[in-house]
């Protein structure tokens, strides 16, 4: 009888237990408060651009006076919107108020993750190549693997920075106040700012990033354009910008994007995929040096990922510097005792990984369907930048430094990978099993290590109080690849070294770009 009673209680309380625990997620990026920069960086128009010859290369016409009927009509447009804002409209105002650079960086990470999937093989065992001119056919363009992603993040960030430097120049020059300053009856839904509102920094970012993304992710144009429109609308209905602020900003952003698109078309990334004939040259070269060459461990064998990415145009140094001062020394010979010892070390990890090591391997795996290691470091940077209350232009400058460094790190790393063509641990000992997918390209050096050291070095310069944290994170990211049994210790250590060197070039630029 007593048991019966207990059972009744259990059965009756079950629905309560079920309903009391909500499954809703709390996502960190939705907790970010509205951006309130500690400094306007009002002189950022003097900062050194990356590609632009100067802030006036793409002129922005003087705005109409705030006393003109046209301007007053634009103010009234805001008021009309604000008279009847829906819940969804207020939500997009809040979303975008966290920062233009931040939100577009998140959108880019999402596009990378969406497209970070290796193509499935053809029936004859060859692999199809994504086609930028037919991006929606399978395999969709692009395959946003780590080098591709590093390049996407870098171009977006660099173009965005140049566009904002130009915007800041004209903001100071024309000094048009925000709509809520010219008309105190405009209701402003975001933090007020003394920053001149023409051209709108938000529209500059939407314009430049939207254009860059359409180049990099041409199959997602509708999605990108929808975000551009949403972003501009958010600023308008928030009372932060009048339409002419937005139009001028978007036009400037689009113009600057063209300069970077021209660079992208000529940076040799288009031919970085290589061919089996080119891969065979790397292989023969490796054999001629008396070393065991890398072979794809996939079935069917997949050509190595972006085998000519090491020849893509760098941002922070020239190709001669890369080869003479940054390229790591040759890895331990595959016939050396050191190599055998390092292989044994990885075999050991593969059979006796601890739960903590496995968690680290998975934390840093950043494999398929993720924003890749450069995306992971963008996320790390973004969360820390939020706390710094940077102005949009400083956000953009810091993101440009970070992402140019990581793209250059990718180029340095991919150069070494194919020059040395070193085999992966599971190729040398087929009992070695991995706890993340085995990357389909040569082992030396570790991409994670190179990306992470480059990122940690420049981020530690940007936020010195976090420098130790970033260094530790980079070391952990590096080690995670040994735990995962996909890299030798030399891959990781030399990767960190060359990544650090790349990071130093980014620091050198940071010291002289006028922002410090």
């Amino acid at each position: 009888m007593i048991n019966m009673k207990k059972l009744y209680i259990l059965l009756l309380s079950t629905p309560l237990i079920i309903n009391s625990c909500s499954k809703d997620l709390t996502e960190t990026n939705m907790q970010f408060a509205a951006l309130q920069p500690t400094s306007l960086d009002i002189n950022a128009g003097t900062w050194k651009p990356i590609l632009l010859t100067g802030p006036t290369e793409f002129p922005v016409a003087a705005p109409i006076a705030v006393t003109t009927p046209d301007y007053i009509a634009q103010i009234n447009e805001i008021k009309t919107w604000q008279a009847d804002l829906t819940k969804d409209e207020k939500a997009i105002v809040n979303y975008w108020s966290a920062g233009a650079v931040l939100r577009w960086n998140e959108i880019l990470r999402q596009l990378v993750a969406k497209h970070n999937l290796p193509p499935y093989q053809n029936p004859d065992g060859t692999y199809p190549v994504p086609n930028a001119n037919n991006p929606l056919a399978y395999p969709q363009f692009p395959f946003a693997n780590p080098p591709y992603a590093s390049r996407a993040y870098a171009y977006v960030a660099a173009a965005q920075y140049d566009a904002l430097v130009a915007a800041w120049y004209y903001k100071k020059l024309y000094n048009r106040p925000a709509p809520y300053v010219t008309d105190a009856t405009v209701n402003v839904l975001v933090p007020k700012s003394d920053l001149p509102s023409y051209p709108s920094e938000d529209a500059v970012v939407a314009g430049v990033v939207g254009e860059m993304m359409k180049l990099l992710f041409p199959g997602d144009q509708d999605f990108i354009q929808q975000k551009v429109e949403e972003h501009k609308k958010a600023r308008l209905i928030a009372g932060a910008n009048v339409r002419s602020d937005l139009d001028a900003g978007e036009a400037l952003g689009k113009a600057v994007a063209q300069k970077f698109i021209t660079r992208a078309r000529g940076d040799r990334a288009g031919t970085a995929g290589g061919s089996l004939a080119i891969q065979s040259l790397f292989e023969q070269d490796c054999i001629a040096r008396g070393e065991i060459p890398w072979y794809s461990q996939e079935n069917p064998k997949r050509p190595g990922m972006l085998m000519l990415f090491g020849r893509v145009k760098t941002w922070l140094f020239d190709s001669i510097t890369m080869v003479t001062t940054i390229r790591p020394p040759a890895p331990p010979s595959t016939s050396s005792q050191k190599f055998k010892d390092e292989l044994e070390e990885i075999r050991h990890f593969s059979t006796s990984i601890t739960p903590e090591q496995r968690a680290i391997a998975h934390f840093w795996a950043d494999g398929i369907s993720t924003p890749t290691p450069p995306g992971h470091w963008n996320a790390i940077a973004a969360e820390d930048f939020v706390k710094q209350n940077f102005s949009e232009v400083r956000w953009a400058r810091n993101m440009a430094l970070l992402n140019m460094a990581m793209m250059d790190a990718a180029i340095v790393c991919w150069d070494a990978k194919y020059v040395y063509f070193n085999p992966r641990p599971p190729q040398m000992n087929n009992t070695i099993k991995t706890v993340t997918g085995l990357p389909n390209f040569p082992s030396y050096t570790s991409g994670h290590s190179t990306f992470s050291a480059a990122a940690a070095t420049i981020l530690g310069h940007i936020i010195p109080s976090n420098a130790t944290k970033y260094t530790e994170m980079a070391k952990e990211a590096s080690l995670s690849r040994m735990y995962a049994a996909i890299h030798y210790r030399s891959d990781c250590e030399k990767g960190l070294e060359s990544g650090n060197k790349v990071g130093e070039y980014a620091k050198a630029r940071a010291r002289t770009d006028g922002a410090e």
Partner: protein
Amino acid sequence: MKKLLAALCAVLTISITALSQTDIDGIMMEKNAFCIGPMFGYSSWKNYWEGTLKRENLNLGTLSTQMYSVMGNYGITNKLNVLFGLPYVKTKASAGQLNGQEGVQDLSLWVKWKPFSKKIGSGRLSLIAIGGYSFPISDYTADFLPMSIGLESKNLSLRGMADYQRGSWFGTISGTYVRRSNIELDRTSYYTTEMHYTNEVKMPDAASFNIRAGYRDKGLIAEAVFDHWNTLGGFDITRNNMPFPSNEMDMSRIGFNFKYDMPFLPQLSLTGNVMTTIGGRNVGQATGFNVGVFYVIDFSKKKKSDSDKSKK
């Protein structure tokens, strides 16, 4: 993909088959009787459904799952039983480099209650309610499908069952709702159909339907089983992607079970089953078997005073 199958097999194997007094059949242990025994299960798949597309994966080959488990069932009264199951699961891929995983998976606990049992027509109808709870008791990861040994969620299940026996023949039908808790990954963001900046994954609930019928009399049970598992939400694996714990995993399986009591020692029984997957989505097309040996210990005072050889 492999992960997914492994996890599902591990989860479903327990609920579909196993000993004759289980959470999914219409049989109750008598008061003070305790049935316990080890089981071994093996299942494997070569083909799987990537969304609705059936494919193989040359870089996984065949994914196999071995399961060693202990299950037990105690009769608090003739109408109220408690059950438990605890499997150790081991996965292995025959091709590629992904490391197989192994470990103690989830502890399952059930309360099984038969409030209604009545002669209707020339047979007997019983209605049974089963409440279950399962949770991981080791720190395996669900974020390595298909190699993972489980999905990590804590599951609260509620099952309603009707059993009708006429002579030596019977049919049992049941439906289950499974409330699954969210799980936490070892990473700070993940992509489903959009980016999520959290380590927490929203796990869709699931529902299942089970029908079984066959011969059931003293000493022998032989039954055919159909089982359908439906995840109520989730998303499809995209082309050439890996599976993810919150995928929409659906599967329909058919199988055959038996339980045979040893004539020389009726407390001892052998159980076994075979099952195969006839349809699915985001799961492997697994086929497998289980075998188990169970022993009934009677704790009732009356029996204790008798000799050990007392018939139940």
